[in-house]
């Protein structure tokens, strides 16, 4: 029992370390640097420690320090409790989703079965969907409690946009569910050991719709109407400063990682290398003994999983710096008139194909 508890604790610490400790700060730098490269600029390169700039990496530390030391401002007439609570409500779901996301397979280490997922829920896929939908409240409450019309406009846009795209997201998930016949994310990941069973091939339409819907849920360009700087100042977080602003910022970056992880699990072969099964890998390193080969394969597969996540983060950033912002009515039209019917057709076609093949 104590061993299980310790293993779970290590997994939780690992996930929090990777998302909050590594990806969130690093991505602020990556976003600046990538946009700079794409626009033929140099980008962040001034922060230095004793003359070393490390290609601008110290900007992460500088940013964090800045967030901590800035004045925490609550506007007059704002609801103090909700104003303080909303950044927390926004950031918690983003991290919580990782509770059911497997970042590796199952390994035997010192006679212990280690399953690289914090909680292997039977309803994992639905859990992701449920928790993601809760994030809406953080953004909506933020705008409402600020007592500012720009903020209110921003949160109205957030609510309508997130409700619209949640429908598509939910229906795409149904397609994935039909193909794999399970809601357990570990099972879905394990099935994709076979390269030709990757979600990308079984649900090609679902893949693109899920990508579009999840970027819309994360409110990044081209779907960033809720915080459109050129229209409504900064949308729902206009009245936020210091660490609370930082938390909204952080939740956006963590959500990018979450999206990457979910996409990897559902559509991109999870922790598997194409054409290389776990058994083959274990066979290669057989000379290291059971524990040794298992640990090595575990490290390789976790590495593969996070490389795929990084790929999806890169994809999202490239989209963000390539496309202009959609107009509000275009977003609604895309969500309700194009993606929703398409996702329904996707379910229908998937059902027919499954029926015919069986």
């Amino acid at each position, binding site marked *: 029992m104590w061993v299980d508890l310790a293993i779970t604790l290590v997994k939780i610490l690992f996930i929090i370390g990777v998302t909050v400790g590594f990806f969130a700060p690093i991505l602020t730098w990556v976003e600046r640097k990538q946009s700079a490269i794409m626009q033929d600029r140099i980008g962040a390169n001034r922060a230095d420690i004793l003359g070393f700039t490390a290609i601008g990496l110290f900007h992460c530390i500088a940013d964090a320090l800045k967030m901590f030391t800035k004045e925490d401002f609550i506007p007059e007439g704002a609801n103090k409790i909700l104003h303080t609570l909303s950044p927390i409500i926004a950031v918690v779901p983003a991290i919580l989703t990782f509770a059911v996301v497997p970042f590796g397979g199952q390994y035997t280490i010192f006679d212990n079965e280690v399953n690289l997922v914090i909680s292997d829920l039977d309803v994992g896929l639905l859990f992701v969907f449920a928790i993601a939908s809760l994030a809406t*409240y953080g953004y909506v409450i933020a705008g409402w409690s600020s007592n500012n019309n720009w903020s209110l406009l921003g949160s109205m846009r957030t609510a309508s946009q997130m409700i619209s795209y949640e429908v598509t997201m939910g229906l795409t998930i149904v397609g994935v569910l039909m193909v794999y016949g399970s809601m357990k994310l570990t099972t879905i990941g394990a099935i994709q050991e076979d390269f030709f069973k990757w979600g990308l091939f079984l649900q090609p339409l679902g893949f693109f719709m899920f990508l579009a819907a999840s970027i819309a849920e994360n409110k990044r360009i081209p779907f960033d109407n809720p915080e459109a700087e050129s229209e409504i100042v900064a949308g729902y977080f206009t009245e936020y400063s210091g660490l609370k602003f930082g938390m909204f910022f952080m939740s956006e970056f963590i959500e990018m990682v979450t999206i990457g992880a979910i996409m990897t699990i559902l559509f991109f072969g999870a922790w598997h290398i194409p054409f290389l099964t776990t058994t083959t890998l274990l066979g290669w390193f057989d000379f290291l003994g059971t524990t040794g080969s298992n640990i090595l394969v575990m490290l390789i597969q976790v590495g593969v999983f996070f490389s795929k996540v990084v790929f999806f983060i890169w994809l999202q950033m490239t989209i963000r710096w390539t496309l202009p912002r959609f107009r509000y009515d275009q977003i609604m039209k895309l969500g309700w008139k194009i993606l929703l019917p398409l996702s329904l057709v996707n379910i229908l076609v998937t059902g027919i194909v499954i029926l015919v093949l069986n």
Partner: protein
Amino acid sequence: MELLIFYPIAGLCVALALGVIFNTSPVGSAMCLIGMMLGLAGIFVLLQAHFIAILQIIIYAGAIMVLFMFVIMLLNLKQTASADWVARDKNRFISILTGVLAVGILYKIIDITFLAELNSSAELPDTFGTVATVGEALFTDFVLPFEVASLLLLAAMIGAVVLAKPKLD
């Protein structure tokens, strides 16, 4: 161990439910209601009904309350002083009636739970409350109520479209 988790969650649910009633701002009430629904989901998890718990979050806490919130913001309801609240005479009669009915239902529920002897710990099968089990029950034993419910939802959906259409044109 289960009671150790049950009592804090149940207490929180009751406290938040009271918060819904006594809050003077609509958004505050809505937030309390969301919290209470999440607490109920927790109780479902304690009962090994993971699927129901997740549905509770998706449907009530996720979908319905977001719409509530949206409407509250659309109307931009602000905090009102409780002194402004006056109960109308006909409402007073209805509230007393519903109150009595609610107490009656509660009494009946307590009665049933005592009769059912829920304390007797029966062994649960491993598959209890999983998606597969619930789905199987839904599409075999309860297929008629399921279809009727879906028809009702469809009717509501069409009704909403019909009501909104003249305003859009």
